[in-house]
Structures are given as structure tokens and as C-alpha cells.
């Protein structure tokens, strides 16, 4: 069953006087619980594709469907609610709120939704990510790997349906990167979350169930490596 799909998705930018097509007429769908890596060379449009797909950016043309409904029919408020309830985001630069502690950052989507936190679930996520002893610290007191774990916990705190990760290991050293990736994989599998991850690292991509390769804004390859199967 498809959880999210896009049809004829195009995103154009103006670069000086030239129009650049970062995403060029892409049609693709993602199944529930699937771990999909989007890869491609630098500047191929993979991050832009992820941003448009996850509603962080509006497409120039085409549509993104979450379930049956097109995201273009959502207003600003509805998109905010969708993001806080159904989507989770992990960025390359972690993007934690500097004034909030680790735990408060994790609680952000739940609190924005005015819900009572599900302590049991959160504890499970925190334990899976191994960050219990770092929860009371401000982001500036944490290492990159720790910050990214907090970011993953935040992305998962509201039990999202889809986890979007944009180069989550890009800022980390090899060991931390590997750790964060395994955690992402493990946690999303455990929790049944669809993971759509952008990476330019083939070793990372190889761990996914499905690999989409983008070049010049178009999907040039859609493969499912045997290892993952």
C-alpha cells in the first residue's frame, strides 16, 4: 500500500537569469514501512526532491499525495499539523532549537500538538537511541552524533508515518555515521515507519530496501538491492 506518492513533480529555481529544473517531472510512490534511499551526485536534485515530497517546499508543478489526498489542497495550518503528526524530519545539520534541552527538543512535535507525551513510547525510543544521559543538555553541549540522535528521537516522538532524512550522516564521522544509520534503520523498522533518506554515500544507500538514483532532477534508476530483500 502506498503511503506517499508524487505525480509529474517539478521544481524549478531561478539561478541568475536561467531557470534550473532541480526536480524534473518525477512520478514515484513509496510503500508503507519501506526504507528508501535517494541517491545521486551532488546537485542532482535529490535533496530538493525530498523537500518537495515532504512539503518543506512547494513544487512548481505536479502533485504530492499523502494517502489519497493531494498536499496542494492543504492550507498552511493543515500542513503544519500534518508535519507535526505524520512526518518526521532529520536534517544534516541536526537543526535543534538551541534554547531547549535535548528532552525538550524531542517533545517539540508532541507539545506543538498539545498532547500528553506517551512516556512509555518515548522511553523506548530514547533507549533505542541510547541518549538517556544527554537529555538534560542544551544542543551546544552535545557532540554531532548525539545531536543527530536527539534529532531522530524528535522526528519519531509523535509516531510519524514517514521519516524524511536529508543526509543524516553527512556531518558525522564514519563511526558515528554508521551508528546513526543503523539506529535509523532499526528504529524505523521497529516502529513500522516509512524511511525516505537522501544520501550521496553509496555504502549508506546500499543498506536500503529500495534505491532511487536521481540525475539532473530525474529518477534514472529505481532498484531494490538483493541484500536488503
Amino acid at each position, binding site marked *: 500500500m502506498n503511503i506517499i506518492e508524487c505525480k509529474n513533480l517539478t521544481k524549478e529555481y531561478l539561478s541568475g537569469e536561467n531557470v534550473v529544473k532541480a526536480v524534473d517531472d518525477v512520478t514515484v510512490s513509496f510503500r508503507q514501512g519501506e526504507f528508501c534511499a535517494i541517491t545521486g551526485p551532488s546537485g542532482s536534485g535529490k535533496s530538493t526532491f525530498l523537500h518537495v515530497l515532504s512539503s518543506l517546499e512547494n513544487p512548481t508543478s505536479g502533485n504530492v499525495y499523502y494517502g489519497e489526498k493531494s498536499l496542494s489542497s492543504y492550507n498552511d495550518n493543515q500542513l503544519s499539523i500534518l508535519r507535526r503528526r505524520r512526518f518526521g524530519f532529520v536534517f544534516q*545539520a541536526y537543526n535543534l532549537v538551541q*534554547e531547549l534541552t535535548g528532552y525538550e527538543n524531542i517533545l*517539540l512535535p508532541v507539545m506543538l500538538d498539545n498532547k500528553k*507525551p506517551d512516556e512509555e513510547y518515548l522511553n523506548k525510543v530514547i533507549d533505542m537511541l541510547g541518549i538517556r544521559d544527554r*537529555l538534560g543538555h542544551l544542543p551546544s*553541549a552535545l557532540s554531532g552524533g548525539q545531536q543527530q540522535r536527539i534529532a531522530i528521537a524528535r522526528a519519531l516522538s509523535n509516531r510519524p508515518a514517514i521519516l524524511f532524512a536529508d543526509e543524516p550522516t553527512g556531518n558525522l564521522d564514519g563511526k558515528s555515521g554508521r551508528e546513526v544509520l543503523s539506529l535509523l534503520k532499526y528504529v524505523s523498522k521497529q516502529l513500522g515507519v516509512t524511511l525516505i533518506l537522501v544520501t550521496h554515500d553509496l555504502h549508506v544507500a546500499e543498506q536500503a530496501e529500495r534505491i532511487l538514483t536521481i540525475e539532473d532532477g530525474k529518477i534514472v534508476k529505481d532498484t531494490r538491492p538483493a541484500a536488503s530483500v
Partner: protein
Amino acid sequence: MKKKLTINTLALGNLKKRKKQYAVLIIGIVLAMVFSSATIFFISCTKSSNEEFKRRTMGNFYFYLFADDGIVDVEKGVRDGYVEEYGYAHILGYAYTQEKGVEQGTPVAWLDETAKELYYPYFEEGRYPEAKGEIAIEKEAALRLGINPEIGEQITLSMQTANSTDYFSDCVEKTYTIVGILADKRKNIEKYLNTMWTPSFAAAFVFEDEEITAGGKEILCLYLNPTEKSLNEKVATQTPAGTAYSSAFESYFVNGIYDKIESLYADNYNYSNLLRDIHSFSYDTNADVSNSSILSITLAVVLMLASCIGIVNAFSSNLKERKKQIGMLRAVGATKRQIINIFGREAFLISLICAPVSVLVSYFAVKIYALLMGDSFIFVPDFTVLIITAAVSVVCVMLAALVPLISAAKISPMQAIRNVELNRKMKNKKIKTQSFFKVPVLIARRSMKLHRARQIGVTLILIITIFASSFGLAILKAELIDTSWYTYYTGDYVVRRSTYADTSHFLNMPNIDKKISLNNISDILAYPEFKSVYGYKEAASFIVTDEYSDYMKLLEFDLFYSLRYKLNSDLLTPENTAAITDVNKLFELCCGGEHQFYNKLKQNTEASAQMRATVINGYDAVMIENCIDRFEVIDGKIDIDKLESGEEILLVAYESADFVISWYDDGSIQSFGIYDTQKEKTKDQTVVTTAQLDIKAGDTIKLHSVYSDVFECDWGTENYIEREHLSFCDKEVKVGAIIKPFDFSDSMSCSTPMSIVTTANGLDIVTGQNHGYENLNISFDGEIDDFSDTAATEYLNGIFAGSYFKSLSGYKEIQDDMYLARIFIISLLSVVILMFSICASIVNNALTAKIRESKKEIGTLRAVGASVKELTGIYVRQLVSMFIWGMSAGLGGYTVIHIILKLCFGKSYAMPYLIWPSLVICILLCFICSINLYFKIKQEMKHSIVENIREL
């Protein structure tokens, strides 16, 4: 070709690359600088406007003397260091028109070069005469002549030729062409004079080659400015009333001339009056200017400090954004000094942009204000102040920039990149992780906690604005709302003395001391629109008694005279005062028990018994009737009919009177006087002795009134008037009632115990002669407007022209007061609005900078599902917090100062306590800023989340 990389190119490069950020920074700094420079410039312009206004309306001279016929040795004054500059008006004659009559005329003169500078002709139109037959005239003087002046118009005047000290009574016809219409000076100077003696001050000017009519001789009138030193140096003079202090100029120069004039022109008091009154007016204005300078400097310093805080704030925000850049520069080997150099130069470049911009904005703001204010605000920009303000602004920007710069340069590269500062702050502030929270509330609270220093500047500016505006608005309320526009005059028009007549405390001199006659009153009542005229008379008399009672001794003239004369002696000290147990001892101590003055006077006035001087106050019966319920009657009953018939009088007295001395800390006498025993005394007042009134209602008292046909001078010395000049009137009257001293400031007053009050007719009867009136109160029939006021004033001027009396218009007084109040209100309101606007802009600017700085955070929060409501909530909460702090501290400070002033000055501090307008303005501003914030966030949300996140 590659450019050489220098610190300057780095600094300039920063400016070029971050145009948007710098634009906001520059706006913030400009606003902070305008906050102070506009106010300083406004104050300086107000000061120069006042000075220019004074020059235009009163001239640029300090001292004026009519007919200096060799009276003043000015050259000696120059040599002795009393005179700075002087010039002469050469009066050729006194011009008037047959139509308006001689009273409405003006002297015509030519001015020498210095006199021109001192008279300071300000032309509403035209120029100074440059050829014979041309005339420049003050507008009001022309109107009084019945001429509506127009340039090029020919006028024919009747001119009495000058004879060096006065004018011949014959007149010749003179024709002039009007070439200049001057702003009024004579009219304004007259207001401050106790005379309406128009022939003394020239208000029309001709060319210097204009010749005087054959047979005449120019009247030389002296315009003079003293030296600063002689004006500031204080000189002590011993007078019968004690030690008096005056300026060296006044003491030596003015008094010297005054004595000379008195001896030369003993029969014409106008000379001396002119001289004295212009002098005192100039002195007061100068004192005002110097007081306002101190206030201005204080205000300027406070505003400059507030601006600096604003600038520190703006730079801190900017450097915060660029911490990573500083860290990077430090990482690649830049020393602290180099960092300060790069960013310091940047600050210098910014200050070079900001200083002229803020000075220009201030200049035009004040200019626009001056345009709006019209004639009442003369825009005289002091460019020195502008240049100084610009220079001080540059220094302030540099100093203010240095504060965050030094702290930024201190941080290590890693600190800059990883922002460990927050973590340190968190530890210091003991922040606890929250497990349940409202996102906007927590982020706002945390942000304020961790970045408190940044908000202090903005909050301080808010505090200063609210504090200052609360006082300003309280003054405004006192001036605008609480003022009921009334005149101090007791009628729509009043007639008062215009000169200090030679009066006596003891004698009546009807031939010398001219008063308002019944004919004058008939003339007034002949004017159809005057409804009624009431007046007041007074006469000197003595209460004759067989024996001095203690009460009389307590009020004794000799006692007071001796004390005043020996004020600085050790006649009375706190120690020997304690030994005084009764009035006789006091009397013995102070006067040696002798009634020197009365003893001598008794010989001359043939009084057989003891006597005490008193003043009989006679009010028209209707005035007493109107106030009958306001008198505090101690004994008896007020019967107006009996007062009218001269059968009874009212005695003003306390039932029991205290002789009270107020001491200075060093034991010398500050003041002394007679007080009601019932009145509570202050801490520094000592009751020396007390006496009971021994006269009751129904008692008969003897009045001995003395008349003289010559001026009684030098009283108190050996020179008493010869018997042949005196006549007497003795009457016995009943004391109808005893009333307490009273002061109905709007109608009548009498504060001296043992004075007598009766009706005007009663006064004539008990003193045996018809007395003229001292002043008149005239009621107008119906509403007064500009037109009817001009006509009525002109009519009254006609009656009293050339006399010792002048008429004053209550309507005009109210109009003048309202006009001045309006100017004051507009000025104050403009300053308050300007301060609040700038304050709002600074607050807004600070928050805009914060939003810009927090773009990444906004993007992150949007990504995790925050809507515009939550995002706006974060910033609005911070804004509200700043306003609450600002309001609480500002209004709290205002309240505390208000209470302190109330406690210190008691009832004399009459300023109302007013906080709600500032509160309303603040809430309104907060609301506007919140709306603005909402739109700023909305604007930010027009960008995609990715753009927000990537911005930095």
C-alpha cells in the same frame, strides 16, 4: 588586477555582502541616535528660538534710558568694566495723527550703528530707511496711529519737535514713505513696564541724515548691554530692610544713575521707572535661559546614554549573527586586536553613515515642527550644536560598538563555532528540563533567560520613555485639562497703578498721590458695553489710644523697624529669645522701650495720646456684599449699611497673636512676623511671645487721619514734615465686627492685623475726605471677542493715557495664556510622541533583528509542525515581557519620584499623578508591534522552510 586585502577591504567587504543586515543595523543605530540628537537639537533650537524671539520682541539690549542728557558717563562705565556696548537712538520728535490723538503717538528716531544692533530691527516687510523721507515703523505703533501700514505708502504725521529732554507742545506736519514694517517691540516692552508713557520709546525710525525741525534738539536715548562679569558678580548692600544682594552692574551703575536721575528729575518718575523695569525683565529671562541649559544638559546626557544602550544592543545582535565569522577568523590566526580592528573600522564606517543621516533627520524633524508651529517657534538652527551632536554621535557609536566587540573578540574559535556560551549560561542559570510545556511560552521564556543582556537596552529605552512621558503627560494634564482659564484680574477689565507713586504708610497726600477720579469712572461707564465698575480705595490713619496695649506693642512699627534694620545683628538670638517672657521685654530689647518714630510724629501731628498706624481699606459695598460669607468673623456682625454710613468699621485682627521668628541653622534670623496663635507653627519657627486682642466688637475707636500737601520723604530719620504742611481729621467709629486677615485673591485681600476694612463711601466718611480709587474692576456686558476687546482696550487707554494708571484686559490675558499653553502643549506632545515613536521603532527593530537572526530556528520549528500562531507567540511573548518590564520600571520610577516630590514639597508640588495615558500608549504600541511581528513572521513564512533553514 587583484585588490590588496587590507583590514579596510575586509570591513568594506562585510558591509557590501550583508547589505540587508547592515541596513537594519544602520536603521537601528540611526533611530537610537535620532532619539537623542533630535531632542538635543530641539532643545537647542528652543533655546535659540526663545533668544531670537526675545531679540525680535524686546530687542537685544539690557538697559534703556530715555533722555540721557549727560546723565550717564558711559565711557567711564566702559573703562570700569561695567559696560560692554552701547548705542543711541536720536529722537527727532513725537509723531501722532490728528485722528487718533496725541496719546496714541510714537517718538520718531534714527539709530546709530550699535543702537541698530541693540534695538535689533526685525522687518516683517521692507527694510531700514536709506534716504531722507523714508520711515520704518512698528506695526502696532502704526495701527495706533490709525495707519494700516503698507510698503510704499505715504503717511503724514503731526510731529512735536524734541527739545533734548522732552517735546515742544507745537507740532509740524511731516510726510514719510513707509519702507519697512517692523515687528513690535514697544508694545511688548510696555507690558513689562509700570508705565504707559509712550513718548519715551521710539517705534518709528528714519534715515540718519534726517534733520530735526529747526529750533529743536535731539533726545538721546541710551541702549546698553553690561559686561557679563559685572552682571554675574554679586554685591552686598546694607539697606534698612537688611542685607540685599544685587549684581555689580545694578549696584554700581544702575543705582548710581538712578540716584542721579532722582535728584535731577524728582518731579518726573517716568525716567526711573523705565530704567528699572527693563533691567529686571532682562535679568529674569537670562536666569530662565541658564536654568533651562542645566536641564537640557542633564536631559541630553540621559538621552545619549539611552541611545548608547540602543546602539550597543544593535551591535550585539549583529555580532551575534556573525560569531561564526569571528570564530573562523580567529581560527585562521586573526588576533583579538585584528578582530577589533576589522569590526571597529566597520563600526566607524557605519557611524560615518549614521551620524549625518541622524543629524539630517533631526534637523528636518525640528524644521517641520517649526513650520507647524508658525510664528511661535523661530527656527534658528545652531549648526555648532549639529556638528557637536554629529561628532558625539560618532564617538558614541564607536564606544557603544566597542562594548560587544571586546567581548566578541575574547571568545575562542571553538566557542564561536559551537556556541558553548549557551551551555555555560544554562549551568549558571540552573535551567531545568520541562516535561510538559507550551512551545511558544517555553522558547520565549528560555530565550529571555539566556539572552537577557540583549533585552536590557530595549527595556531601558522603554523605561526612560515611559518615565519621561509620564511626567510630560502629567504636566500636559496640569496645563491643559486642570487649568480653568481664568484671569487674575478681578473684572473683565481692571485699572491699576502704572507707576510706583510716592505713597506713605502714615500720611495721605491727595495732591501728590493721584488716584482714579469719579470723572474717570463716569467716562468708563459712558462706554455702552461696560456694565459695571467697582473699585477699591485706601487711606492711611492712626488708631489713637490712651495706653499701648500688649497687642498693639506686638504689632508695633518701631519693633519691626528696629528688627529689620538690625536683622544681621545679635539683637535677637535663639538664646536670648528664651528669656523673653512678655511683650514689654521684647519691646525693651529691640527698641530700648522707646517709640522713636511715634514720639516725633506725635509732636508734629499734635496727637495727645498714643497711636498706632493703620491702613483703611475701602471696597465698594457690592464687593463686600459678594464676599460677606467668606469673612471669618471673630466677634460681632458685618452690617454693610452701617459701614456705608461711617458708623461702623471692620477691624482685621487675630484674637490672639504670636510674634514668631524663623531661624537659620547658624542662629541668625531668617524671618519674623505676626501669626495667628491658632495656626500651627513649623519646626524652625519659635513663638517669642503672645498677646491677646483687647478690642471687642461694639467698642469705639478713635481714628486720627493726617493729610499733607508735600511729599513726606526720609521717614524714619530726623526729617519730618513741618507742621504747616499738615492737616488732621479725628473721628470716632464703632467696631462693627472683628474679622481675621483674609485673602480672596480673586477680589479682595488684607493680611495685616489691626487694619481696617470698610466700604469706599465709609472710608471717605471716617477719614473726612473724598479719596480717589486705587484700582477698578470693570464688567463687560456680554461675550468678549477680539474685536470688542480691541475697541474696549483702546477706549480705556484713551481715558488713562498719560496718567499713573493703566488698564488691563482679562480677556487678553486669558488669550495670551491659552496661546502660550497651546504652544507648550504642542511642544510637549510632539516630544512625547517622538520619543514613543522612536522607542517603538527601536523595539521593533530589535525584534526584527531577532527574527532575522532566528530564521534557522523558525525553519526548524516550521519543519516540526509549528504554525504561524505558535511562531508569533514566541516573539510576542518576548515583546510583551519587554513592555511589562519597561512599563513597571518606568511607571514605578515615576510613582516613586512623584511620592518623593510630594513628600518634599507638600502642597506646593501640584503636579497630578497620571499614569493611564502612558499605560494606554504603551499597550497600544505593544499591540501595534505585535501586529507588525505577526506580519513579519507571515512574511518569513512566505519563504519555504528550506529557505529559512538555509538562510544562515
